[in-house]
Structure formats: C-alpha cells, structure tokens
C-alpha cells in the first residue's frame, strides 16, 4: 500500500467511517472547519481596527460579520445539494477569502466593501455551479463550445480592453472591469480534460519513437500544439506571461496525469522554453520583465517606467516584515498620499502579508494553499470517471500554479507578472472564477465520495 499524506488522510477517513459511532459527519466537520476561519477574521479585523485607533466604526465590523454569515449560507447550501463533498475544501477556501478580506480592508476599507460584494457574487456562482452542474458530462459534451468561449475571452481585451503594466488583461464592461483570463483558465482545463479523457489511451497505445523520444501520433498530438500556441499567443499578443505559464503548466500536468508519460512533459517544457527565449529576445515587453527580474536594484531599471520598481518595493516590504512581521496595519503603503508599495491590493498583496504577518504568517498562508491543493488532488484520486478525475486534477494544478506564479513573482523566484493571488487579492473576476473552481471541485468530490460511500468504500 502506498504511503503519503493523501493516502494517510484517506485512511483516516475510512477508519472514521468504519467506526460505527461516526466521529463526525463530513458536513459537521466542515462547519467546525469554519470556526477557526471566523476567529481569524474577527481577530484580523480587530487587529486592523486597533491599529487605526480613532477609526473604529460599526460599519466596518458589519463587513466582517456579513462575511461570516455568507460563509454559513454557503455551508447550508453544501449540506443541501452536495452532502457528500469533501469537508475541507470549502473551509479552506473561506479561510483564504477571510485572509483576503482582512488584508484588503487593511489596505483600503472601500475596496474591502467591494471585495465583500464580489464575495457574494462568488458564492452565487458557487451555488449556480452546484445547482446546474449535477451532471458534469454536460461540460464534456460542450467542450468545443467552451474552448471557443475561452479563446474569445482571451482575445477580447486585446480588442476592447485596457492596458495594465503593458499587458492586455482587462475588458471594460461599463462600470465593471473584467479579467477574462481568470474564467478562461477554467474553460481551458475543462476542454483539455475532456479531450484527454477520450484520447489518452489512444495517445499511449499508438505512440511511436522518434529520435529516442516517445511521441503520440500527430493526430492526437495536434491539440497539444494548439494549447502551446494559445500559451504563446497569450505571451505575445496579450502580453500576459503569468497566465501563459499558468495555462501551459496546467496543461502539462493534465497531460502527465492522463498519459503517465514524463517525456511529454519534458517535451512540452522544452517547447515552452524555446518559445519563451525567442520572444524574450524579440518582444520588448517580455525582455523588460526578465531584466527587471534579474537586477531589480539597478537604479536605472528601478526608476524606469515599467521597470523593476514594483518588484524592488515588494522585496523592501518583505525585508521590513522580518520573521514575525510588523503587525496588521503596520506596513507602510503610502507616504503623504503617495504609494510606497504599488498595486498592494492585487499583484503585491503577498508582500503586504509578509510585511505585516512576517515570514511565519506567510508560510502559514502557503500551507493553507497547500492543504487546499492536497484536498483537490485527493478529490481527483477518489474520482472514478476519467473526465472527472482529470477535471479535478487540472483545476487544482492551475490553482497551485497561479499561487506559484504570483508568489514566485513577488519573491523573485520567477519574473513578476500580473496574476492574482487566489481568494486573497482584490478583484471581482478572480473571486468569482475561483468560487466556480471550488464549485466544480465540490461537485466532482460529491459524486466521487457518494459512490465510495454507497459502494461501502468510505
């Protein structure tokens, strides 16, 4: 029997289920999981309010309270429609959203109010997924429609939208701005999962060796090239390196899960690197990002427009935090009304977390993300249907990569690019899309775990 955290957790659950006294039902565990979230959010708001001394008012407290009420509403919905779903995914997502709303509140109370509204929309999307997608084969059937939708979503900002830091990331919809990459990432995963669920066996069965490398037949290899092309398109036309890494990385993870061929992943990585190096030397926007990443403290790059100023300031904020952090509300984000840390509520929110909660707090946040990833992959392992399995694995991989791309950007593991920190960064599209992602994972989980329960496996 294989060992590892995933198996250990599964074994514990089995033991719990076999024990006649039924320690706690899954849903009650979920409810108890929300308790620490409630405490953390209350403590966070209290911390920020204490720092602000004079500005304590009831309205700000109601945001925190409303947030918790909505968490509870979501939980009741899960009890009703997804009773067998994994009990930890929802509280972990709520914990992340709670950290987000406290941090955004700390940066700007007005933005926190908007964030809370988006949180409501996100929950609505979550409920909608739970209500409408009881049968996930619906997604499988409309895979090409969904893929086409993803393409349109990705190209729209280039046609209509605005430029942020030299990248076309937004669509302006009157009063609301929309970042399509957030929803497109889900659509792409659905398409690739559906495609690979059908063709994975054929790809492996009919593969041939070429120059010592196992290659799938061109017929099935084609879609891989298409996704690679999409990633490159993102890189050059949308100028969004972050999303490009996220999409392509998620695709490679899926390809690996579907075929079990590491050689495909290596080949895919090589293709991505070659493409990246080519565009780095030819496309100014990409090259500038890489220069800023290599030498953020070079004064010329630091003061250049679109230079390394943002990443350097993010590093300074982290240095200011130290091991234990400056404390909630104690980072210096503005001086005399001028920003010290630009895009603190979106791209650089992780730097604010390190600054205020320190290295220890940041590692705790990363652990929450890792637990979420663990639950997502656990769900994939429990699922029996190939599409559901690939869908859960793909969504989780994209989620994990998104965290890696933005935190890695802020900490200079990789060049900094503008993707959001899921559930924590300010941003409507991101919150809504990630709730859709959670909804899909919960639907997969509900189905898989019910089958296990009914089959007496759990």
């Amino acid at each position, binding site marked *: 029997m294989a060992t590892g955290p*995933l198996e250990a957790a599964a074994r514990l659950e089995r033991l719990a289920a076999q024990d006649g006294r039924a320690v706690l039902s899954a849903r009650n565990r979920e409810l108890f999981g929300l308790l620490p979230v409630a405490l953390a959010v209350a403590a966070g708001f209290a911390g920020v309010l204490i720092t*602000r001394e004079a500005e304590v008012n009831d309205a700000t407290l109601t945001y925190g309270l409303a947030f918790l009420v909505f968490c509870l509403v979501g939980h009741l919905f899960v009890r009703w429609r997804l009773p067998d779903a994994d009990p930890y995914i929802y509280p972990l997502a709520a914990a992340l959203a709670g950290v987000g709303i406290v941090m955004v509140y700390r940066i700007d109370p007005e933005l926190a109010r908007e964030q809370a509204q988006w949180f409501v929309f996100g929950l609505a999307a979550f409920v909608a997924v739970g209500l409408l997608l009881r049968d996930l084969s619906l997604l499988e059937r409309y895979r090409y429609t969904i893929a086409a939708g993803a393409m349109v979503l990705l190209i729209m900002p280039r046609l209509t939208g605005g430029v942020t830091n030299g990248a076309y990331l937004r669509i302006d919809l009157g009063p609301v701005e929309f970042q399509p990459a957030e929803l497109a990432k889900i659509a792409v995963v659905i398409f690739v999962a559906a495609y690979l669920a059908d063709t994975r066996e054929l790809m492996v069965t009919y593969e041939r060796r070429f120059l010592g490398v196992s290659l799938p037949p061109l017929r099935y290899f084609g879609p891989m090239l298409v996704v690679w092309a999409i990633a490159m398109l993102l890189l050059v036309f949308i100028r969004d390196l972050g999303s490009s890494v996220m999409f392509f990385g998620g695709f490679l993870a899926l390809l690996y899960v579907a075929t079990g061929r590491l050689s495909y992943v290596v080949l895919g990585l090589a293709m991505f690197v070659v493409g990246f190096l080519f565009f780095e030397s030819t496309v100014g926007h990409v090259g500038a990002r890489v220069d800023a990443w290599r030498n953020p403290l070079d004064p010329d790059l630091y003061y250049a427009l679109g230079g390394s100023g943002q990443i350097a300031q993010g590093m300074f904020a982290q240095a200011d935090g130290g091991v234990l952090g400056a404390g909630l509300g104690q980072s210096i984000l503005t001086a005399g009304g001028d920003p010290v840390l630009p895009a603190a509520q979106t791209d650089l929110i992780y730097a604010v977390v390190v600054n205020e909660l320190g290295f220890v707090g940041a590692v705790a946040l990363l652990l929450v993300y890792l637990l979420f990833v663990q639950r997502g992959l656990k769900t994939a392992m429990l699922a029996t249907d190939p599409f559901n399995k690939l869908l859960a694995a793909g969504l989780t991989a994209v989620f994990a990569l998104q965290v890696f791309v933005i935190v890695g950007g802020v900490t200079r593991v990789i060049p900094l690019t503008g993707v959001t920190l899921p559930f924590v960064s300010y941003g409507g599209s991101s919150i809504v899309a990630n709730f859709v992602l959670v909804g899909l994972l919960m639907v997969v989980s509900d189905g898989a775990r019910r089958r296990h329960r009914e089959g007496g496996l759990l």
Partner: protein
Amino acid sequence: MNVAIRRVFWGVVVLFALLVVYTARWSVIESDSLKRSSLNKIPALREWRDPRGPILTTERGTIARSVRSGSGDDVHYSRRYPLDVLFGHPAGYSYVTRGGSGLEKYYDGQLVGRKDEFVSVLDSLLGRKREAQSLVTALDEPAQRVARQALAGRVGSVVVIEPRTGRVPVYVSVPGYDPNDVRDSDGYARLNSDDGSPLFDRVATSAYPPGSTFKVVTATAAIDTGAYRPSSVVNGDSPKQISGTPLENSGGKSWGDITLTDALTHSVNTVWAQVGEDVGSDTMIEYMKRFGFYEKPPIDLPSDQLAASGLREHGELLPDETPIDVGRVAIGQERLAVTPLQMATVAATVANGGLRVAPRLAVSFEDRTGRTKDRVGVKRITRVMSAATARKLNEMMQNVIREGTGTAAALAGINSAGKTGTAERARGNQAWFIGFAPAEHPRYAIAVTVEQTTGQGGTVAAPIARQVLQNLLR
C-alpha cells in the same frame, strides 16, 4: 492515473518549498542588506512615523521640532525650524526625501531614539517603544542673533568656543539658509543654485588664508620651544628678503629693532617671517598639528561638513615633505588655508592655558519629561603649549587690543585679548579677528572673518567680535 496525481502533488510541494525559501531570503536572510539599500525608503519612513526629539538652545528655545501630519495609517512627522534662518548651519535639516545635515545628521540616532539591534529586539518583544531624545545645545540665541546682525549681510562667519569646556554658543555663517526651505525640492534647488552659496558652511567647510591671525601660531612655536621670549628683539625694517623675494610691512613701515610683543601688537610682518624661518618648517608644522591643523576639527558635525586646515593646494592638504616658504607661512600667507573654526580653536587654546579641547555644540540629551539621559563631557584634551607660554601669549594678545591693531575689539570694563588679520585676495580682503575675553579668566574665545571686504581685520572683523563678546558677557 493516481500515481501521476500523487507525483503532481509532490511537484507542487517542491514549488511551494521554493516559495518558502525565497520568502525567507527577503524577509529574514537578506533583510538587513535590503534595508540598507539607498532605493529603500521604508526604513526612513518608518522612523518618521514617530516624532523626532527637538533640538534646543541652551535656554531651551526650540531650534527644531517635529509636527504631525496625515491620518489613519499614513500618520507621519516632519521637521519644522521655528527660528528659520538663525541656526541653519549648525542645526542642519532632516527630511525623508533629502536626508539630513548638521546636528540633525550627526545626532540622528539619539534624536530618533535608535538603539542597537539586540536592545531593539528586546524592546519590541516587551512592547516598548523607542524613545526619541531632546538635544540640548550650547547655542545661545541672543548672541547668535547679535552675531548675525553684526555681520549685517556681509559674507563671512562668527564662531565662539568656551575655552575650558569646548562648548560652542555661537555658530553663524552668512549668507545663511532657512532649513524650512529645504523641505520642498524647488526651495532646495533654489538654495543650491544661489550665487551666494547659502548652504555652504563658512565656519567649518570654508578654508581661507588666515593672514596675521596666524602669527599667534608662529609666536606659540617661537616661545614654547624656548627659542624666543616676548621681550626678544628682532629687526623690523622693511622690506626684508624672505626666501629670496622681498617682503614688506603693512604700509612699508620700518620698525627698527623691536620686541616680539610689540611686533605682535603692530603685526610686523618682517619680524614674524624671520622668526618663522628661524624656527623652521618642521617645528612650525609640528605646532600646527598640535593646534589641530591637518585634521578635520573634532566637532560634533558630520565629517562631510568639515575641512582640515593647513597648507593646501587645489583643496588638498600638501604632504609634509613639500618645500614651503616657511617665512611667509609664519605670517599667514603662502598656501595656508584655514577654517574659522580652526582659528577659534587657536584662540581658545591660548585662553585655556595651552590645553586644546574638542569643540562641542551638544550639551546634553533629555527624555520627553525633561530628565537628563546623557551629558556630553569635555572631550579630547591636548596640551599644545606650556601654561607659561600660554600666559605670555595671553599678555601679548592683550596688548594688541590695548594699543595695537585690535583696539576696535576692546570691551568696556573688561580686559580682552586678540589678534587681527587681513589677507589680500583677488577679490578684496579677507578680514579676520581672533581673541578671547575676559583676559584673566577667559570664558569665550572667538573667530570672526569677513570675505571680500575693502576694510582690514581691525576695522571690519574686530568690531563684530566686540559686539558678540559684549553680548555673551552681559
């Protein structure tokens, strides 16, 4: 597929471990070096979140204080200087955007209340806030005001030292600047481009030819080595060949055989040039070094604001072995360039019986409640000459005030001592006066200089010294 999924999980673990390592790198491992980066404004901004201690005159008048602005978590403090231009040079300024200068820079740590690393970690764990200290200076507002008014807009400086303690009650450089103007970049740019160079410190940064005030140094070397007595007689005819070129007395006057006392009283160039040649350049430079020449003055101001006095060329000190015209050095010519602060130290050393004390602007530090936390003691005492030599020079310098070139510095009812100087320069005279009072028990030593004047040390600088000393001895 589950095997692959498990591997994907471990892949994610590896990626996240990388994130943890890099977070540790910036927040812990390289935190200190990032904080020192000149691009990083956060450490300075953090210091400005708390008020800085005030800088006070000796009578507890406010030279610099902190005012609060902003709201919420953007509260910060900035500096205001209620006395405007009066103490611009010694006090300096301190702003987030511009850094600091003067006392503000030198005593930054105490004014902010910064402590060493270990103590500050302990304090943060115990929830103690760092405590800004008030800086009490020796600066005397009325006397400073009188000195500024006495200069009456003429370019120059006045500096006063208390001989026994080294305290500096007067430190005036004209044209001065208002530290409040440095706050915005336009004001700073204006001050920087001003033809009068108001940001330039004419007490400690400018070095001028000292003229005849330097004869006090020559007299010290001559008498302290035992080669001469005040009554020693030297021929004072004019001109005399010095280093192969003729040297004249003021007005071309020949004084015949006269004593050193009379030669100082009437500032006879030919006598002191001969004495200097007799003493020799090695001994002259040795005594200059005892007085503090050839090093930056040990005053409590930032090093970049201080110039070393001595034989200089192109702003650099000449090496000791450079051949010099020691006869002309002895009368304050040649390539001599000295700061008024150095000349005030010469006067203070004679006044203090031959002991040189480091000049000090700061007197003590107090906490918020006014309790003294730290007292600035008398520092760096060097014996320059014997007490007997100092007594003889004191008397010789009294004669200068009584019947010589320095009568305009005489005080009503108080004996004082001094020496005038006038150096001829391309654009007018550099007028000097150095001295101290009361002569019997000196309390204040002074140096006054005025740039580009048509007058003499005795007519231009001496009256300024009289007004300032009169005020201090009020």
